[in-house]
């Protein structure tokens, strides 16, 4: 099979090297992507299964690198392979052992702040009556403790999968919005909605813990 990748594609060199079976090029991309792939896979299924999926993903990358057409980055393409595998497996697993929320993906568009908290006696509905308590003035400076981070981790795990993926890629792995849209095949508006809802839910969990 011939690869139709345009020569000016930023990943053209790596793709060509992988097609030739270049170990060094392969090791290089593995080092870059394996930790993030593993973390995301482990947010779906238990560790051992997740690691198996990541192994299978790399095997699929080697075997089907010729089919990569360069419509996205190589990184997005590899993540999509992993996500397709892990989503399928997570749905199957959830029927046996509920591990994490794989769905439903729909969300009833909860407001970012509960309406009852935005009842200002003078300005009316939709305005803060008083500012929320600042976290850095919270008693005994607990904000960045191990326990807080555990709460944050648990809150992320409890998010619907679509939100969890975006939060993980943007706020844990540090991807750009554009990269996330490419890897997940979602619009930029959808990406921001999912990210915002996810962040809001995590903020609430921290607030609840600190209060």
């Amino acid at each position: 099979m011939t690869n139709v990748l345009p020569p000016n594609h930023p990943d053209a060199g790596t793709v060509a090297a992988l097609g030739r079976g270049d170990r060094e090029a392969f090791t290089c991309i593995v080092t870059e992507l394996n930790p993030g792939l593993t973390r995301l896979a482990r947010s779906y299924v238990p560790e051992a299964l997740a690691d198996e999926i990541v192994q299978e993903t790399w095997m699929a990358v080697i075997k089907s690198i010729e089919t990569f057409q360069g419509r996205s980055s190589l990184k997005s393409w590899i993540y999509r392979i992993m996500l397709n595998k892990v989503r399928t497996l997570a749905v199957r697993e959830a029927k046996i052992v509920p591990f994490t929320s794989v769905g439903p993906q729909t969300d009833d568009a909860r407001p970012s702040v509960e309406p009852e908290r935005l009842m200002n006696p003078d300005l009316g509905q939709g305005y803060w009556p008083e500012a929320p308590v600042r976290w850095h003035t919270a008693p005994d400076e607990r904000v960045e403790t191990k326990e807080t981070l555990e709460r944050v981790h648990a809150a992320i795990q409890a998010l619907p999968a679509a939100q969890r993926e975006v939060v993980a890629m943007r706020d844990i792995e540090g991807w750009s919005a554009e990269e996330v849209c490419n890897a997940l095949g979602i619009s930029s508006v959808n990406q921001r909605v999912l990210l915002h809802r996810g962040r809001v839910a995590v903020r609430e969990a921290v607030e609840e813990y600190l209060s």
Partner: protein
Amino acid sequence: MTDDQEFIKNDLRIACADAVELVTDYLDDALAPRDLDDFQVHLGLCEGCQVFVDQIRKTVTLTSQTQDLTVPVEPANMDALFAALDEKRTD
């Protein structure tokens, strides 16, 4: 008081309930110029929304700190992958 309230409301441009929905767009520089202007004016006058924005920023920082650095750098069976790569070389 009614006049004052109207004044404050107009000054704030948008309700807090709307402002809090725009925070992620704001942090991503994704607001349209006019929305950005309304949002910034509101934020300048509203302590509640300032705190909310700070808390979302803090949430992002806390989230980044949950990154599990103990995950393996390499997949479980690198040898099998190298073997598959070697097969491509003899193609």
